[in-house]
Protein backbone atom coordinates (compact mmCIF):
# COMPACT_ATOMS: atom_id res chain seq x y z
CA UNK A 1 0.00 0.00 0.00
CA UNK A 2 2.81 2.33 0.92
CA UNK A 3 4.61 1.56 -2.29
CA UNK A 4 1.49 2.30 -4.32
CA UNK A 5 1.21 5.69 -2.60
CA UNK A 6 4.87 6.34 -3.21
CA UNK A 7 4.42 5.65 -6.89
CA UNK A 8 1.34 7.88 -7.00
CA UNK A 9 3.13 10.72 -5.27
CA UNK A 10 5.94 10.46 -7.72
CA UNK A 11 3.44 10.61 -10.55
CA UNK A 12 2.06 13.92 -9.41
CA UNK A 13 3.61 16.63 -11.44
CA UNK A 14 3.50 20.18 -10.29
CA UNK A 15 2.53 22.69 -12.90
CA UNK A 16 5.31 25.11 -13.66
CA UNK A 17 4.41 28.15 -11.61
CA UNK A 18 4.43 31.38 -13.49
CA UNK A 19 2.98 33.46 -10.62
CA UNK A 20 5.39 35.46 -8.47
CA UNK A 21 6.50 33.77 -5.30
CA UNK A 22 4.41 34.74 -2.23
CA UNK A 23 6.80 33.44 0.41
CA UNK A 24 10.46 32.74 -0.35
CA UNK A 25 12.98 31.33 2.10
CA UNK A 26 16.52 31.31 0.75
CA UNK A 27 19.21 29.35 2.59
CA UNK A 28 17.58 30.06 5.91
CA UNK A 29 19.28 28.73 9.02
CA UNK A 30 18.21 29.30 12.60
CA UNK A 31 20.15 28.53 15.74
CA UNK A 32 19.72 29.38 19.40
CA UNK A 33 22.40 29.83 22.03
CA UNK A 34 22.19 26.94 24.48
CA UNK A 35 25.38 27.46 26.47
CA UNK A 36 27.79 30.37 26.75
CA UNK A 37 29.79 29.05 23.81
CA UNK A 38 27.54 26.65 21.94
CA UNK A 39 24.49 27.08 19.74
CA UNK A 40 21.80 24.64 18.71
CA UNK A 41 20.84 24.74 15.04
CA UNK A 42 17.13 24.16 14.58
CA UNK A 43 16.69 24.83 10.87
CA UNK A 44 19.52 24.37 8.43
CA UNK A 45 19.65 25.82 4.92
CA UNK A 46 15.95 25.85 4.24
CA UNK A 47 14.98 26.77 0.68
CA UNK A 48 11.30 27.13 -0.01
CA UNK A 49 9.16 28.94 -2.53
CA UNK A 50 5.48 29.19 -1.75
CA UNK A 51 3.15 30.53 -4.44
CA UNK A 52 -0.01 32.63 -4.10
CA UNK A 53 -3.10 30.63 -3.26
CA UNK A 54 -1.25 27.55 -2.05
CA UNK A 55 -2.39 25.81 1.11
CA UNK A 56 0.85 24.52 2.53
CA UNK A 57 0.66 22.10 5.41
CA UNK A 58 3.87 21.89 7.42
CA UNK A 59 4.29 18.64 9.28
CA UNK A 60 6.99 17.28 11.52
CA UNK A 61 7.84 15.92 14.92
CA UNK A 62 7.75 18.06 18.03
CA UNK A 63 10.76 20.37 18.17
CA UNK A 64 11.65 20.01 14.50
CA UNK A 65 11.26 23.74 13.86
CA UNK A 66 7.75 23.95 12.36
CA UNK A 67 6.69 26.84 14.55
CA UNK A 68 10.11 28.47 14.13
CA UNK A 69 9.57 28.41 10.37
CA UNK A 70 6.22 30.11 10.85
CA UNK A 71 7.66 32.72 13.20
CA UNK A 72 10.35 33.48 10.62
CA UNK A 73 7.74 34.16 7.96
CA UNK A 74 5.79 36.23 10.46
CA UNK A 75 8.81 38.34 11.33
CA UNK A 76 8.72 37.38 14.99
CA UNK A 77 12.13 35.71 14.70
CA UNK A 78 15.08 36.28 12.41
CA UNK A 79 17.37 33.75 10.76
CA UNK A 80 21.07 33.47 11.55
CA UNK A 81 21.66 33.39 7.82
CA UNK A 82 19.56 33.54 4.68
CA UNK A 83 16.69 35.75 3.63
CA UNK A 84 12.92 35.62 3.84
CA UNK A 85 10.65 37.48 1.44
CA UNK A 86 6.89 37.76 1.87
CA UNK A 87 4.70 39.44 -0.72
CA UNK A 88 7.75 40.86 -2.47
CA UNK A 89 9.29 42.48 0.61
CA UNK A 90 12.00 41.31 2.98
CA UNK A 91 10.67 40.35 6.37
CA UNK A 92 12.26 42.46 9.08
CA UNK A 93 9.33 43.04 11.44
CA UNK A 94 5.82 41.79 12.14
CA UNK A 95 3.21 43.51 10.00
CA UNK A 96 -0.20 43.03 8.45
CA UNK A 97 1.04 41.16 5.36
CA UNK A 98 0.45 38.00 7.34
CA UNK A 99 -2.67 37.03 9.24
CA UNK A 100 -1.90 34.92 12.30
CA UNK A 101 -3.90 32.32 14.19
CA UNK A 102 -1.98 30.82 17.12
CA UNK A 103 -2.98 27.74 19.08
CA UNK A 104 -4.05 29.75 22.12
CA UNK A 105 -4.29 33.33 23.38
CA UNK A 106 -5.58 34.18 19.93
CA UNK A 107 -8.25 36.61 21.08
CA UNK A 108 -8.11 39.76 23.18
CA UNK A 109 -9.83 38.77 26.43
CA UNK A 110 -11.06 42.30 27.12
CA UNK A 111 -13.07 42.50 23.91
CA UNK A 112 -16.28 40.78 22.91
CA UNK A 113 -16.32 38.48 19.88
CA UNK A 114 -17.54 41.20 17.57
CA UNK A 115 -15.05 43.74 18.95
CA UNK A 116 -12.24 41.26 18.42
CA UNK A 117 -13.19 40.87 14.77
CA UNK A 118 -13.62 44.62 14.27
CA UNK A 119 -10.29 45.45 15.89
CA UNK A 120 -8.10 45.00 12.80
CA UNK A 121 -10.11 46.97 10.22
CA UNK A 122 -10.68 49.68 12.84
CA UNK A 123 -6.92 50.07 13.18
CA UNK A 124 -6.39 49.94 9.47
CA UNK A 125 -8.89 52.67 8.62
CA UNK A 126 -9.10 54.90 11.68
CA UNK A 127 -6.28 56.58 13.52
CA UNK A 128 -6.64 57.79 17.10
CA UNK A 129 -7.90 61.19 16.02
CA UNK A 130 -10.26 59.83 13.36
CA UNK A 131 -12.10 57.98 16.12
CA UNK A 132 -13.22 61.32 17.49
CA UNK A 133 -14.92 62.35 14.23
CA UNK A 134 -18.68 61.84 13.71
CA UNK A 135 -17.98 59.78 10.56
CA UNK A 136 -16.37 57.16 12.79
CA UNK A 137 -19.79 56.06 14.04
CA UNK A 138 -21.02 55.40 10.50
CA UNK A 139 -17.81 53.54 9.71
CA UNK A 140 -18.20 51.45 12.83
CA UNK A 141 -21.80 50.57 11.96
CA UNK A 142 -20.76 49.36 8.50
CA UNK A 143 -17.82 47.49 9.95
CA UNK A 144 -20.05 45.81 12.50
CA UNK A 145 -22.30 44.47 9.77
CA UNK A 146 -19.26 43.08 7.90
CA UNK A 147 -17.88 41.55 11.10
CA UNK A 148 -21.24 39.95 11.90
CA UNK A 149 -21.37 38.44 8.40
CA UNK A 150 -17.86 37.06 8.81
CA UNK A 151 -18.68 35.54 12.20
CA UNK A 152 -21.94 34.01 11.01
CA UNK A 153 -20.03 32.54 8.07
CA UNK A 154 -17.67 30.97 10.59
CA UNK A 155 -20.65 29.30 12.22
CA UNK A 156 -21.23 31.57 15.20
CA UNK A 157 -24.70 32.50 16.36
CA UNK A 158 -25.79 36.13 16.56
CA UNK A 159 -26.45 35.66 20.28
CA UNK A 160 -22.77 34.87 20.87
CA UNK A 161 -21.37 37.98 19.23
CA UNK A 162 -21.42 40.09 22.37
CA UNK A 163 -19.87 37.45 24.58
CA UNK A 164 -16.32 37.63 25.85
CA UNK A 165 -13.79 34.96 24.85
CA UNK A 166 -13.87 33.28 28.27
CA UNK A 167 -17.59 32.70 27.86
CA UNK A 168 -17.11 30.61 24.71
CA UNK A 169 -15.67 27.17 23.99
CA UNK A 170 -12.20 26.68 22.53
CA UNK A 171 -13.68 25.81 19.13
CA UNK A 172 -15.75 28.96 19.00
CA UNK A 173 -12.77 31.03 20.06
CA UNK A 174 -10.71 29.63 17.19
CA UNK A 175 -13.54 30.35 14.75
CA UNK A 176 -13.46 33.96 15.90
CA UNK A 177 -9.67 34.02 15.68
CA UNK A 178 -9.85 32.92 12.05
CA UNK A 179 -12.57 35.47 11.31
CA UNK A 180 -10.45 38.13 13.00
CA UNK A 181 -7.47 37.31 10.79
CA UNK A 182 -9.55 37.05 7.61
CA UNK A 183 -11.20 40.44 8.16
CA UNK A 184 -7.88 42.02 7.22
CA UNK A 185 -7.83 40.08 3.92
CA UNK A 186 -4.13 39.24 4.38
CA UNK A 187 -2.26 37.80 1.37
CA UNK A 188 -0.77 35.19 3.72
CA UNK A 189 -2.47 33.37 6.56
CA UNK A 190 -0.22 31.68 9.13
CA UNK A 191 -1.78 29.09 11.41
CA UNK A 192 0.28 27.60 14.20
CA UNK A 193 -1.30 24.37 15.50
CA UNK A 194 -4.55 26.32 15.36
CA UNK A 195 -6.81 23.31 15.85
CA UNK A 196 -4.63 21.14 18.05
CA UNK A 197 -6.40 21.97 21.30
CA UNK A 198 -9.85 21.15 19.94
CA UNK A 199 -11.95 18.03 20.24
CA UNK A 200 -12.20 15.81 17.12
CA UNK A 201 -15.70 16.85 16.01
CA UNK A 202 -15.04 20.60 16.43
CA UNK A 203 -11.75 20.10 14.69
CA UNK A 204 -13.39 18.35 11.72
CA UNK A 205 -16.01 21.06 11.36
CA UNK A 206 -13.39 23.82 11.54
CA UNK A 207 -11.22 22.03 8.99
CA UNK A 208 -14.13 21.96 6.55
CA UNK A 209 -14.91 25.63 7.16
CA UNK A 210 -11.32 26.68 6.73
CA UNK A 211 -11.10 24.73 3.51
CA UNK A 212 -14.27 26.39 2.19
CA UNK A 213 -13.05 29.84 3.09
CA UNK A 214 -9.72 29.15 1.47
CA UNK A 215 -11.50 28.02 -1.69
CA UNK A 216 -13.56 31.21 -1.77
CA UNK A 217 -10.85 33.75 -1.04
CA UNK A 218 -7.65 31.84 -1.87
CA UNK A 219 -5.17 33.35 0.56
CA UNK A 220 -1.80 31.66 0.77
CA UNK A 221 -1.96 29.50 3.88
CA UNK A 222 0.95 28.15 5.87
CA UNK A 223 -0.60 25.65 8.23
CA UNK A 224 1.65 24.15 10.89
CA UNK A 225 0.38 20.93 12.44
CA UNK A 226 1.63 17.70 13.92
CA UNK A 227 -1.47 15.85 12.76
CA UNK A 228 -0.78 13.92 9.55
CA UNK A 229 -4.43 13.50 8.58
CA UNK A 230 -5.13 17.19 9.08
CA UNK A 231 -2.18 18.12 6.90
CA UNK A 232 -3.26 15.78 4.12
CA UNK A 233 -6.91 16.77 4.24
CA UNK A 234 -6.39 20.51 4.23
CA UNK A 235 -3.28 21.16 2.23
CA UNK A 236 -2.60 21.43 -1.46
CA UNK A 237 1.05 20.90 -0.68
CA UNK A 238 2.80 19.10 2.11
CA UNK A 239 6.14 19.97 3.63
CA UNK A 240 7.69 17.68 6.19
CA UNK A 241 10.46 19.06 8.34
CA UNK A 242 12.89 16.87 10.17
CA UNK A 243 16.54 15.93 10.56
CA UNK A 244 18.18 14.25 7.57
CA UNK A 245 20.44 12.16 9.75
CA UNK A 246 19.65 10.00 12.74
CA UNK A 247 20.60 11.81 15.95
CA UNK A 248 20.91 15.18 14.25
CA UNK A 249 18.84 18.08 15.56
CA UNK A 250 19.16 20.22 12.46
CA UNK A 251 15.90 20.12 10.54
CA UNK A 252 15.55 20.50 6.84
CA UNK A 253 12.83 19.85 4.30
CA UNK A 254 12.45 16.08 4.35
CA UNK A 255 9.58 15.95 1.97
CA UNK A 256 7.93 18.56 -0.23
CA UNK A 257 5.12 17.32 -2.39
CA UNK A 258 1.86 18.43 -3.88
CA UNK A 259 -1.25 16.77 -2.48
CA UNK A 260 -3.96 15.30 -4.69
CA UNK A 261 -7.20 17.30 -4.61
CA UNK A 262 -9.74 14.58 -5.28
CA UNK A 263 -12.67 16.31 -3.56
CA UNK A 264 -13.45 19.63 -1.93
CA UNK A 265 -15.33 17.96 0.89
CA UNK A 266 -13.05 16.87 3.66
CA UNK A 267 -15.23 13.98 4.82
CA UNK A 268 -15.22 12.56 1.27
CA UNK A 269 -11.46 12.95 0.99
CA UNK A 270 -11.02 11.30 4.34
CA UNK A 271 -12.73 8.15 3.11
CA UNK A 272 -10.77 7.83 -0.12
CA UNK A 273 -8.20 5.08 -0.57
CA UNK A 274 -5.79 7.69 -1.84
CA UNK A 275 -5.92 9.51 1.51
CA UNK A 276 -5.22 6.37 3.50
CA UNK A 277 -2.34 5.36 1.25
CA UNK A 278 -0.84 8.80 1.48
CA UNK A 279 -1.23 8.90 5.23
CA UNK A 280 0.62 5.64 5.64
CA UNK A 281 3.30 6.80 3.27
CA UNK A 282 3.75 10.15 5.02
CA UNK A 283 3.72 8.62 8.48
CA UNK A 284 6.43 6.25 7.40
CA UNK A 285 8.45 9.06 5.92
CA UNK A 286 8.03 11.44 8.80
CA UNK A 287 7.91 9.34 11.91
CA UNK A 288 7.73 5.63 11.13
CA UNK A 289 10.49 3.14 10.58
CA UNK A 290 12.77 6.01 9.76
CA UNK A 291 14.28 5.96 13.20
CA UNK A 292 15.86 2.61 12.51
CA UNK A 293 16.31 3.01 8.77
CA UNK A 294 18.03 6.18 7.72
CA UNK A 295 17.40 5.52 4.06
CA UNK A 296 13.68 5.99 4.47
CA UNK A 297 14.04 9.48 5.88
CA UNK A 298 15.90 10.87 2.90
CA UNK A 299 13.76 11.29 -0.16
CA UNK A 300 16.11 13.07 -2.56
CA UNK A 301 13.88 12.97 -5.63
CA UNK A 302 10.97 14.50 -3.76
CA UNK A 303 13.08 17.11 -2.01
CA UNK A 304 14.67 18.14 -5.26
CA UNK A 305 11.30 18.45 -6.88
CA UNK A 306 10.09 20.43 -3.92
CA UNK A 307 12.89 22.89 -4.34
CA UNK A 308 11.94 23.25 -7.96
CA UNK A 309 8.38 24.19 -7.10
Amino acid at each position, binding site marked *: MVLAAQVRVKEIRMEKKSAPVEIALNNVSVSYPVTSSGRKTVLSNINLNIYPGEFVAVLGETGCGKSTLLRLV*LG*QEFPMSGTIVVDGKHVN*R*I*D*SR*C*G*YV*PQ*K*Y*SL*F*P*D*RTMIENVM*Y*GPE*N*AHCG*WLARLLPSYRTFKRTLRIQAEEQLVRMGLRASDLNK*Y*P*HQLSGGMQQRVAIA*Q*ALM*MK*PPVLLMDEAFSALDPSTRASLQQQLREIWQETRPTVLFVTHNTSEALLLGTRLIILGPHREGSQESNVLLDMPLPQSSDTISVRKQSTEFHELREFVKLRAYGASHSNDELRVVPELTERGEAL
Partner: protein
Amino acid sequence: MASIAVLGQFADIQGRPRKLWTQSLSWVLFLVGVFVYSQFSIVRHKENPEDRVVPSVSQLYQGIKSAVLEPAEEDDALDANASTYQRLTHSMLAKDTLSSAGRFFAAILLLVPAILLGLHMAVFPFAEAFFLRFILFFDKIVALSLLPILFIAFGIGDWAKIMLMVIGVAPTLMLDTYNLAKAVPREQVVKAFTLKSSNLDITYRVVLKQILPQIINSVRLNLKPLALFLFAGEMIVSSDGLAYRIGIMRRHMGMDIIIPYILWVAVLLFGMDSLLRFANRRLHPWF
Protein backbone atom coordinates in the same frame (compact mmCIF):
# COMPACT_ATOMS: atom_id res chain seq x y z
CA MET B 1 -25.48 18.95 68.54
CA ALA B 2 -26.38 21.61 66.01
CA SER B 3 -23.57 23.90 67.17
CA ILE B 4 -21.06 21.03 66.88
CA ALA B 5 -22.25 20.42 63.33
CA VAL B 6 -21.80 24.12 62.53
CA LEU B 7 -18.31 24.11 64.04
CA GLY B 8 -17.51 21.01 62.00
CA GLN B 9 -18.39 22.95 58.86
CA PHE B 10 -15.52 25.36 59.58
CA ALA B 11 -13.09 22.50 58.97
CA ASP B 12 -14.84 21.33 55.82
CA ILE B 13 -13.18 22.56 52.61
CA GLN B 14 -16.27 21.59 50.69
CA GLY B 15 -18.59 23.45 53.04
CA ARG B 16 -20.94 25.91 51.34
CA PRO B 17 -22.30 28.52 53.75
CA ARG B 18 -25.66 29.96 52.80
CA LYS B 19 -25.94 33.67 52.11
CA LEU B 20 -27.42 34.38 55.53
CA TRP B 21 -24.57 32.48 57.18
CA THR B 22 -21.97 34.32 55.11
CA GLN B 23 -23.46 37.69 56.04
CA SER B 24 -23.80 36.83 59.71
CA LEU B 25 -20.33 35.32 60.05
CA SER B 26 -18.70 38.33 58.44
CA TRP B 27 -19.95 40.57 61.30
CA VAL B 28 -19.08 38.29 64.19
CA LEU B 29 -15.50 39.55 64.72
CA PHE B 30 -16.69 43.17 64.69
CA LEU B 31 -19.20 42.38 67.44
CA VAL B 32 -16.57 40.46 69.40
CA GLY B 33 -14.22 43.46 69.13
CA VAL B 34 -16.86 45.87 70.40
CA PHE B 35 -17.78 43.51 73.23
CA VAL B 36 -14.18 42.93 74.36
CA TYR B 37 -13.45 46.67 74.22
CA SER B 38 -16.54 47.64 76.20
CA GLN B 39 -15.84 44.99 78.86
CA PHE B 40 -12.25 46.13 79.13
CA SER B 41 -13.39 49.74 79.39
CA ILE B 42 -15.96 48.88 82.08
CA VAL B 43 -13.32 47.08 84.13
CA ARG B 44 -10.86 50.00 83.84
CA HIS B 45 -13.53 52.56 84.69
CA LYS B 46 -14.52 50.61 87.79
CA GLU B 47 -10.93 50.97 89.00
CA ASN B 48 -10.60 54.60 87.87
CA PRO B 49 -13.71 56.50 86.73
CA GLU B 50 -11.44 59.16 85.13
CA ASP B 51 -9.52 56.64 83.03
CA ARG B 52 -8.65 58.01 79.57
CA VAL B 53 -6.67 55.10 78.15
CA VAL B 54 -9.73 53.01 77.33
CA PRO B 55 -12.51 55.59 77.10
CA SER B 56 -16.04 54.58 77.90
CA VAL B 57 -18.83 54.73 75.34
CA SER B 58 -19.99 58.10 76.69
CA GLN B 59 -16.42 59.48 76.58
CA LEU B 60 -16.09 58.24 73.01
CA TYR B 61 -19.41 59.83 72.12
CA GLN B 62 -18.24 63.16 73.54
CA GLY B 63 -14.93 62.86 71.69
CA ILE B 64 -16.64 62.10 68.37
CA LYS B 65 -19.11 64.93 68.94
CA SER B 66 -16.38 67.47 69.54
CA ALA B 67 -14.32 66.21 66.57
CA VAL B 68 -17.26 66.27 64.17
CA LEU B 69 -18.99 69.47 65.31
CA GLU B 70 -16.32 71.68 66.84
CA PRO B 71 -13.37 73.42 65.25
CA ALA B 72 -9.80 72.46 66.11
CA GLU B 73 -8.13 74.10 69.10
CA GLU B 74 -5.87 76.18 66.87
CA ASP B 75 -8.84 77.54 64.87
CA ASP B 76 -11.25 80.28 65.81
CA ALA B 77 -14.38 79.20 67.60
CA LEU B 78 -17.60 79.16 65.58
CA ASP B 79 -20.49 81.49 66.19
CA ALA B 80 -22.95 80.06 68.71
CA ASN B 81 -25.72 80.33 66.10
CA ALA B 82 -23.77 78.44 63.42
CA SER B 83 -25.81 75.82 61.57
CA THR B 84 -25.05 72.11 61.78
CA TYR B 85 -23.71 72.21 58.21
CA GLN B 86 -21.32 75.02 59.14
CA ARG B 87 -20.25 73.12 62.23
CA LEU B 88 -19.66 69.96 60.20
CA THR B 89 -17.67 71.67 57.47
CA HIS B 90 -15.55 73.70 59.88
CA SER B 91 -14.99 70.89 62.32
CA MET B 92 -11.63 69.47 63.34
CA LEU B 93 -12.36 66.14 61.63
CA ALA B 94 -13.41 67.79 58.33
CA LYS B 95 -10.34 70.03 58.33
CA ASP B 96 -7.97 67.15 59.03
CA THR B 97 -9.70 64.83 56.57
CA LEU B 98 -9.55 67.40 53.77
CA SER B 99 -5.88 68.14 54.40
CA SER B 100 -4.90 64.46 54.41
CA ALA B 101 -7.15 63.63 51.46
CA GLY B 102 -5.61 66.44 49.40
CA ARG B 103 -2.12 65.02 49.97
CA PHE B 104 -3.33 61.50 49.41
CA PHE B 105 -5.01 62.18 46.06
CA ALA B 106 -2.13 64.36 44.87
CA ALA B 107 0.16 61.39 45.48
CA ILE B 108 -2.23 59.04 43.64
CA LEU B 109 -2.26 61.43 40.67
CA LEU B 110 1.53 61.48 40.65
CA LEU B 111 1.55 57.69 40.64
CA VAL B 112 -0.17 57.59 37.24
CA PRO B 113 3.08 58.42 35.35
CA ALA B 114 4.81 55.72 37.40
CA ILE B 115 2.26 53.17 36.22
CA LEU B 116 2.71 54.32 32.63
CA LEU B 117 6.48 54.06 32.96
CA GLY B 118 6.14 50.47 34.18
CA LEU B 119 3.90 49.73 31.20
CA HIS B 120 6.32 51.27 28.71
CA MET B 121 9.24 49.42 30.27
CA ALA B 122 7.47 46.13 29.67
CA VAL B 123 6.42 46.90 26.11
CA PHE B 124 9.39 48.82 24.69
CA PRO B 125 12.68 46.92 24.99
CA PHE B 126 14.80 50.09 24.88
CA ALA B 127 12.82 51.65 27.73
CA GLU B 128 13.27 48.40 29.65
CA ALA B 129 17.02 48.46 29.11
CA PHE B 130 17.20 52.11 30.15
CA PHE B 131 15.05 52.07 33.31
CA LEU B 132 14.73 48.58 34.74
CA ARG B 133 18.03 48.18 36.58
CA PHE B 134 17.78 51.65 38.11
CA ILE B 135 14.22 51.11 39.28
CA LEU B 136 15.06 47.71 40.75
CA PHE B 137 17.80 49.42 42.75
CA PHE B 138 15.67 52.46 43.62
CA ASP B 139 12.95 50.13 44.90
CA LYS B 140 15.33 48.89 47.59
CA ILE B 141 15.94 52.36 49.05
CA VAL B 142 13.93 52.75 52.24
CA ALA B 143 11.68 55.69 51.49
CA LEU B 144 11.57 56.96 55.08
CA SER B 145 15.34 57.29 55.07
CA LEU B 146 14.90 59.90 52.34
CA LEU B 147 12.73 62.08 54.55
CA PRO B 148 15.52 64.49 55.61
CA ILE B 149 16.51 64.94 51.96
CA LEU B 150 12.88 65.50 51.01
CA PHE B 151 12.44 68.13 53.72
CA ILE B 152 15.55 69.93 52.43
CA ALA B 153 14.49 69.62 48.78
CA PHE B 154 10.77 70.35 49.13
CA GLY B 155 10.58 72.22 52.44
CA ILE B 156 8.37 71.19 55.30
CA GLY B 157 5.15 71.85 53.44
CA ASP B 158 2.82 69.41 51.71
CA TRP B 159 5.18 68.57 48.85
CA ALA B 160 7.66 66.74 51.07
CA LYS B 161 4.87 64.48 52.36
CA ILE B 162 3.43 63.93 48.88
CA MET B 163 6.85 63.06 47.50
CA LEU B 164 7.47 60.68 50.39
CA MET B 165 4.29 58.82 49.46
CA VAL B 166 5.18 58.82 45.76
CA ILE B 167 8.76 57.66 46.33
CA GLY B 168 7.59 55.03 48.77
CA VAL B 169 4.97 53.46 46.55
CA ALA B 170 5.94 54.33 42.95
CA PRO B 171 8.70 51.72 42.49
CA THR B 172 6.40 48.94 43.72
CA LEU B 173 3.58 50.03 41.42
CA MET B 174 5.99 50.48 38.53
CA LEU B 175 7.45 47.00 38.93
CA ASP B 176 4.05 45.47 39.47
CA THR B 177 2.74 47.07 36.27
CA TYR B 178 5.92 45.96 34.50
CA ASN B 179 5.41 42.36 35.59
CA LEU B 180 1.72 42.41 34.69
CA ALA B 181 2.43 43.80 31.23
CA LYS B 182 5.23 41.30 30.69
CA ALA B 183 2.79 38.50 31.50
CA VAL B 184 0.51 39.42 28.59
CA PRO B 185 0.99 36.53 26.15
CA ARG B 186 3.39 37.35 23.34
CA GLU B 187 0.82 35.93 20.91
CA GLN B 188 -1.47 38.86 21.70
CA VAL B 189 1.16 41.41 20.75
CA VAL B 190 2.11 39.50 17.60
CA LYS B 191 -1.53 39.16 16.63
CA ALA B 192 -2.13 42.86 17.21
CA PHE B 193 0.75 43.74 14.90
CA THR B 194 -0.74 41.53 12.17
CA LEU B 195 -3.98 43.47 12.70
CA LYS B 196 -2.25 46.70 11.75
CA SER B 197 -1.78 48.04 15.27
CA SER B 198 0.73 50.78 15.89
CA ASN B 199 3.13 50.71 18.83
CA LEU B 200 0.79 53.00 20.76
CA ASP B 201 -2.23 50.86 19.88
CA ILE B 202 -0.50 47.84 21.34
CA THR B 203 0.69 49.66 24.43
CA TYR B 204 -2.61 51.27 25.34
CA ARG B 205 -5.38 49.40 23.51
CA VAL B 206 -4.02 45.88 23.90
CA VAL B 207 -1.65 45.64 26.88
CA LEU B 208 -2.89 48.42 29.19
CA LYS B 209 -6.53 47.55 28.56
CA GLN B 210 -5.86 43.94 29.50
CA ILE B 211 -3.91 44.67 32.66
CA LEU B 212 -5.92 47.67 33.88
CA PRO B 213 -8.08 45.65 36.28
CA GLN B 214 -4.95 44.14 37.80
CA ILE B 215 -3.34 47.57 38.07
CA ILE B 216 -6.43 48.79 39.91
CA ASN B 217 -6.10 45.82 42.26
CA SER B 218 -2.45 46.73 42.75
CA VAL B 219 -3.44 50.31 43.63
CA ARG B 220 -5.99 48.88 46.08
CA LEU B 221 -3.26 46.87 47.78
CA ASN B 222 -1.04 49.94 47.91
CA LEU B 223 -3.64 52.18 49.58
CA LYS B 224 -2.37 51.22 53.02
CA PRO B 225 1.34 51.78 52.26
CA LEU B 226 0.32 55.17 50.84
CA ALA B 227 -1.54 56.03 54.05
CA LEU B 228 1.44 54.77 56.04
CA PHE B 229 3.84 57.16 54.31
CA LEU B 230 1.30 59.98 54.63
CA PHE B 231 1.03 59.33 58.36
CA ALA B 232 4.80 59.21 58.74
CA GLY B 233 5.14 62.59 57.04
CA GLU B 234 2.26 64.19 58.93
CA MET B 235 3.42 62.92 62.30
CA ILE B 236 6.89 64.36 61.79
CA VAL B 237 6.07 67.81 60.42
CA SER B 238 2.58 69.12 59.87
CA SER B 239 0.05 71.67 61.06
CA ASP B 240 -3.04 69.68 60.12
CA GLY B 241 -4.12 66.26 58.94
CA LEU B 242 -5.45 63.07 60.47
CA ALA B 243 -2.05 61.76 61.57
CA TYR B 244 -1.03 65.17 62.90
CA ARG B 245 -4.13 65.18 65.11
CA ILE B 246 -3.48 61.65 66.35
CA GLY B 247 0.09 62.73 67.19
CA ILE B 248 -1.14 65.81 69.07
CA MET B 249 -3.83 63.88 70.94
CA ARG B 250 -1.30 61.24 71.98
CA ARG B 251 0.50 63.90 74.01
CA HIS B 252 -2.76 64.66 75.89
CA MET B 253 -3.77 61.00 76.20
CA GLY B 254 -6.81 61.93 74.10
CA MET B 255 -7.89 58.39 73.30
CA ASP B 256 -11.49 59.58 72.97
CA ILE B 257 -10.32 61.39 69.78
CA ILE B 258 -7.56 58.99 68.70
CA ILE B 259 -9.77 55.89 68.55
CA PRO B 260 -12.49 57.54 66.40
CA TYR B 261 -9.75 58.99 64.17
CA ILE B 262 -8.15 55.55 63.68
CA LEU B 263 -11.53 54.05 62.85
CA TRP B 264 -12.32 56.96 60.54
CA VAL B 265 -9.07 56.41 58.57
CA ALA B 266 -9.88 52.71 58.31
CA VAL B 267 -13.40 53.51 57.09
CA LEU B 268 -12.04 55.95 54.49
CA LEU B 269 -9.52 53.42 53.17
CA PHE B 270 -12.09 50.63 53.24
CA GLY B 271 -14.54 52.85 51.34
CA MET B 272 -11.93 53.75 48.74
CA ASP B 273 -10.98 50.10 48.35
CA SER B 274 -14.64 49.10 47.95
CA LEU B 275 -15.17 51.88 45.41
CA LEU B 276 -12.21 50.72 43.33
CA ARG B 277 -13.36 47.11 43.56
CA PHE B 278 -16.85 48.11 42.45
CA ALA B 279 -15.46 50.22 39.58
CA ASN B 280 -13.26 47.32 38.52
CA ARG B 281 -16.23 44.98 38.36
CA ARG B 282 -18.36 47.43 36.41
CA LEU B 283 -15.69 48.61 34.01
CA HIS B 284 -14.16 45.20 33.34
CA PRO B 285 -16.91 42.60 33.26
CA TRP B 286 -14.57 40.22 31.43
CA PHE B 287 -12.07 40.14 34.33
